[in-house]
């Protein structure tokens, strides 16, 4: 019985020593390995773009004071969404989007301007500042525009953006209207003034 045990131990030892000889390749002066890469590319989707929650912007009434100028203190804004469809919570189309702002009937000398509703000789130039959500890690796109037909690059809003979204949440865009100042004792802007602007947002 003891001899059998010793033979078994010897056989096991031989087996262990033989393991390296069972390697899967033969050492040589040259060796090769291969890999294949595959990827599928699909064309871009042309998104359906919709603007949600763009409302009128009332600027209120301001009382001129004799001898004092109005210095760009009349400001109004509105928040709105640019919807391009969603895949889950992510915009189907990541942007950028092209936004062009026209003044209906044209501006005054090429500038955006409020016009006298009853007196066409009255007008007040305005600056439109439009900023949107981020595209990736980039800063918010958009900017200030003054010339009729100006174009900005914008980002789509998040899926959670609704007409009630405010304060740039959910990548809502914000448009701010800032009229130029009125010189002291100038009646250039007296009366009711208004303008209608059309925003066209499109995917390239």
């Amino acid at each position, binding site marked *: 019985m*003891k*001899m059998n045990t*010793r033979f078994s131990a*010897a056989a096991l*030892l*031989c087996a262990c*020593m*033989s393991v*390296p*000889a069972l*390697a899967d*390749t*033969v*050492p*040589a*002066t*040259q*060796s*090769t*390995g*291969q*890999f*294949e*890469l*595959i*990827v*599928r*590319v*699909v*064309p*871009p*989707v*042309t998104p359906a773009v919709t603007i949600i929650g763009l409302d009128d912007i009332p600027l209120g009434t301001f009382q001129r004071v004799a001898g004092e100028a109005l210095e760009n203190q009349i400001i109004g804004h509105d928040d709105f969404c640019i919807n391009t469809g969603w895949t889950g919570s992510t915009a189907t189309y990541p942007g*950028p989007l092209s936004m062009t702002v026209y003044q209906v009937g044209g501006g005054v000398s090429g500038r955006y301007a409020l016009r006298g509703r009853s007196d066409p000789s009255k007008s007040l130039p305005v600056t439109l500042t439009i900023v949107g959500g981020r595209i990736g890690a980039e800063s918010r796109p958009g900017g200030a525009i003054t010339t009729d037909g100006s174009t900005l690059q914008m980002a789509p809003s998040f899926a959670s953006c609704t007409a009630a979204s405010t304060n740039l949440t959910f990548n809502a865009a914000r448009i701010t209207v800032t009229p130029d100042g009125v010189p002291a004792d100038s009646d250039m802007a007296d009366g009711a003034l208004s303008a209608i602007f059309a925003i066209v947002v499109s*995917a*390239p």
Partner: protein
Amino acid sequence: MRLSPIHPLAALLFTAASPALGEPQSTGSFKVELTVAAPSGGADYVEILGLDNERIDLGTIQSSQSASTPWAIPDLFFCLKRSTPGTVRVMVAQAGTNPNEPFRLQSATNPAISTNLPGYADALGLSLYLHSADNGDNDYLTNGVAFDQVNSAPGCDANSGLGIAHRLSIQPADIPAFASFPRQGLYSGLFTITVSLP
């Protein structure tokens, strides 16, 4: 490190035990002998480990109508081993291309080959870099052109990663704007890495 084949020419010597007639213990001894033979390819040999005809599916990428689309390819790790100290000679070649042509993934449906990338051929351009385990050597690879590299760190095997194995980083060129250079469909490339003695 590949172990040399060991020929277990062991002569096992042992002392036959005496009949156990009530002893409380028994002792024995044995001697082991072996002979180590040189590899069949000679004492100096090379080997690549961890790159066994892998097919790496990078999934689906949606290109952009107006802007280039960045994308990424994960790093590959493998061992470049040599049985003796010294460098190894490495060459990466893409099947179906000629030496010095750009690496790329070629369209399966429009296989026309051009060296002008990425604007003209229906292909996706690639740049390949081979990094040694310690990042001391970072070589830009030219298709079909051999160069010398240090071998992998000791202990490198098919499962080794950063710090031990060599790293192949593949940097794809952005997919061009679809409106200018439409790219769509399946793209692929088969690459062979050959390691040899310098």
